[in-house]
């Protein structure tokens, strides 16, 4: 047999516990979660600014310069490869020299030949060791030479640059 004060205390205690539990439930209902997705794609690009006209002849230096920009977020050992695109005019030679971005290396210390009087030399590796990089305004220079058999006039030579793993 419990006394009246004990019963009142028990009832009050039970009520208090319910109030605390309800308070906790209220607090939970005032919070909401949602998921936020963040993603980054693989991005690799090289863009070479057009070079000015090559002029071959008695008073021409045969060297023109330009710039290029390169970006890659791929954590891999990549290379820059260059080649002649399309059909170049016969009797023309083209060499290219490129400034490597930070962390990369030029394949050769001297110029790399892309075109000989007999035709393209095929894809040539210009740079190696390209990792995660983002640079602009890097130098690239071209040297040209023509044989005496080439007729005077203007011809277009298209070069292709790409980044490969």
């Amino acid at each position, binding site marked *: 047999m419990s006394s009246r004060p004990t019963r009142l205390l028990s009832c009050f205690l*039970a*009520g208090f516990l319910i109030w605390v539990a309800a308070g906790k*439930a209220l607090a939970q209902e005032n919070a909401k979660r949602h998921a936020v997705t*963040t*993603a980054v794609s693989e*991005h690799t690009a090289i863009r070479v600014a057009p070079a000015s006209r090559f002029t071959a002849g008695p008073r021409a230096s045969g060297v023109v310069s330009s710039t290029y920009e390169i970006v890659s*977020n791929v954590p891999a050992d990549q290379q820059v490869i260059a080649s002649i695109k399309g059909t170049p005019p016969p009797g023309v030679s083209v060499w290219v020299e490129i400034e490597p971005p930070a962390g990369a290396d030029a394949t050769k210390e001297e110029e790399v030949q892309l075109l000989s009087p007999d035709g393209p030399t095929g894809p040539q590796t210009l740079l190696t060791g390209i990792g995660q990089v983002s640079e602009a305004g890097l130098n690239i220079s071209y040297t040209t030479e023509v044989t005496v058999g080439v007729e005077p006039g203007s011809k277009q030579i298209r070069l292709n640059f790409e980044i490969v793993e």
Partner: protein
Amino acid sequence: MIHSLARWRCFGALLLLSGASALGTSAQGQALFFEGGPPQLRIDRFVPGSSSATDVDKSTVLSYERAQAPGPRLKVVVSAPAVSPSASNERFELQVEALAPTAGTPQGQIRLRESMPPTDLIRGIEPCKGKNAQSKACEEQATLRYQMRATVESGPGQNEHVIQYTLQTQ
């Protein structure tokens, strides 16, 4: 007989308290919720010469209810609970900002880090005396502006962040 009556009185009081709590919980269930979303941010390219890139998402609206007058002044806090101790979501930087809240004062951009302490997003949400301009009883809104930033060095990949918003007494 008297004891039995007292027991029933106590039981009845507890039943009423439970019912009131349940009603209160139901009403408060609408206190905070999202419209739109879920936020998805993606970076597809980097500008050469720049080491980082950003993306912004404003697809989610946060709705929150003011307390009924003479209730307390409220605030919205944001946190990023750790989902998995092994999973690191710190690869890309993520920030959130409450834009143009219809009640309260925005606290600017907040950098979201996993397991960060709750941080104030909107403060000074005054109690409501009636209906607001949209005739919705004390319901207010703010656009959530998420901004992610990634560096070239952080590489490609995807992260899932769980972000929690809590409406609480200031």
